[in-house]
């Protein structure tokens, strides 16, 4: 549905997006991750046809965003960053206006407006003027305009920004549900959101794609993925450490906490030995009298990966 090839954007000297390519198919929810200023919004603005690209091609549903602008744009629903709205309209009038602009047939406009209001939980404010709305309602009103014409492609720039935890949960579920029949791109810097609703995620830093995969694949790339978290006793802490380090499966032992007769440690396995390591540790318990209180295989976390591969703004 969405095809982006070798896309770049320069603002003067500054390179905001640097030669990125990706595709999103129908039924896919793509999460866009990255630090502030990484180029997420710029990319989305180009895909929606707001900013012209400096180089590269974008096609939406087979229509090129530059050559067949109107055909491409009519397939897209877009929630811009900060959810802009016309402050002098009521929620209902605003949605009606957007439905008309989005070419919803005249006799279906009322239905479309009602459906969008129901989907985004706006019944309580439908007759209220936009400039009196709270941030959560403003955001959901703007979300409602993006889905009012039931588009094949949805592009949502930080759709859960400014919502309370309940609303965040609702919006995530909504995205997941809509993702079954549409192609969705959404950006966020909340990592749990990616796990909750994405089928795939891309991490962008300084205009470049630095990781691309399903949330599970990405988690496995984190440094601690496959490490074993161990809480044990029964021997002196130095003894436990030495015994662990002697094991051929072990690459290193990071002691997190140590008492007289106990230890909390993260045991990093040698490459390819992560399956055998737990067994080896239990073997220690049998032969050396190690008492295992807790042992679990760490899954690796997205936020760890995120911190490892993106550079903080302070570093330049």
């Amino acid at each position, binding site marked *: 549905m969405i095809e982006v090839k070798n896309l770049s954007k320069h603002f003067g000297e500054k390179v905001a997006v640097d030669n990125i390519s990706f595709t999103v198919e129908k039924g896919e929810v793509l999460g866009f991750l990255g630090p502030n200023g990484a180029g997420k919004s710029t990319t989305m603005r180009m895909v929606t046809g*707001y900013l012209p690209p400096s180089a590269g091609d974008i096609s939406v549903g087979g229509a090129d965003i530059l050559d067949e602008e109107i055909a491409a744009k009519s397939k897209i629903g877009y929630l*811009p960053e900060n959810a802009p709205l016309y402050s*002098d309209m009521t929620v209902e*009038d605003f949605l009606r206006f*957007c439905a*008309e*602009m989005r070419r919803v047939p005249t006799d279906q406009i009322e239905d479309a407006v009602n459906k969008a209001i129901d989907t985004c939980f706006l019944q309580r404010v439908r007759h209220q003027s936009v400039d009196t709305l709270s941030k959560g309602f403003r955001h959901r009103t703007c979300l409602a*305009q993006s889905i009012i014409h039931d588009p094949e492609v949805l592009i949502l720039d930080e759709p859960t920004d400014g919502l309370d935890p309940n609303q965040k949960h609702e919006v995530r579920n909504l995205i997941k549900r809509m993702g079954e029949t549409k192609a969705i791109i959404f950006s966020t810097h909340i990592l749990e959101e990616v796990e909750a609703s994405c089928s795939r995620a891309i991490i962008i830093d300084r205009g470049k794609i630095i990781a691309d995969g399903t949330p599970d694949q990405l988690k496995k790339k984190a440094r601690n993925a496959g490490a074993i978290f161990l809480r044990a006793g029964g021997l002196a802490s130095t003894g436990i450490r030495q015994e662990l380090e002697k094991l051929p499966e072990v690459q290193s032992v990071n002691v997190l906490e140590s008492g007289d007769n106990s230890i909390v440690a993260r045991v990093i396995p040698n490459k390819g030995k992560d399956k055998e390591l737990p067994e080896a540790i239990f073997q220690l318990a049998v032969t050396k009298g190690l008492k295992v209180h807790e042992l679990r295989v760490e899954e690796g976390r997205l936020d760890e990966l995120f911190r490892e591969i993106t550079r903080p703004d302070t570093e330049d």
Partner: protein
Amino acid sequence: MEATIALLLNFAIPTVIVAAIFIALLLFVLPREVRTIFKREVKSYFNSPIAYVCVFIFLVISNGITFWFGGLLESGEASLYISYFQYLPWYFVVVAPAVGMRLWSEEQRLGTMELMLTMPIAPWHAIVGKYLAASVVIFAMLVLSFPIVWVINYLGNPDNGVIMAGFVASFLTALCFLAVTSVVSAFTRSQIVALLISIGLCLLLWLGGLQPVSQAVASLKGGWLFVWPFLKFINIIGIIPHFSELAKGVLGLRDIIFFLSFIAFCLFSTAVVLRVKRA
């Protein structure tokens, strides 16, 4: 009584015809998107104080000056050019930018430009729809100026055809100023900046055609390296000669074409500015 009816026919019929052409244009010629944007903008004008304030100020000033300073009653002449129409563009130099300053700057300030320009419409739909909505406010001002026509007809026996031409000339001049404001508002997100710069440009545009400027152009010819081309330029696009010809009742095709092409050029420039700003 009979006179009043005749007067109404003289003015109401052309006004209704202009309005009808306008509505027909919107309904049958221009695409649905233009209509939708036009409707929204008109509602927005009349839901906020801005349209009422502009119309009110315009009416107070235009009528006040005509009666107190223009010497309408003392002149003993049954015409409106000297005491009324020749001053109207001066008010529009301020009032038209006040009406038009929000056209694109508001859109940029609210961020709704991003919504508007990612909808499946061509940019000219939005530019024309918004411009037409603002021109309705100007149209309302001139329609509400009708009492002065009634007064002059009550007092004497003027040529109402010339008065109608005066209104047409004033309307077209105001539309030019509005078009300039449309371009300026595309540059900035601040309405105040848009207002001030537009007033400055409209003033230049208005004064550019004045006699002293023409004389300066003729006498300087080629001298004063940068000043002359500039003077020449504003002299060429100056509105006054076109306005005064029309307002005196000389319906010249040349002047009408000047006004319409000037407006079209400004609206086109608005599209260019909006495009360049995004690139």
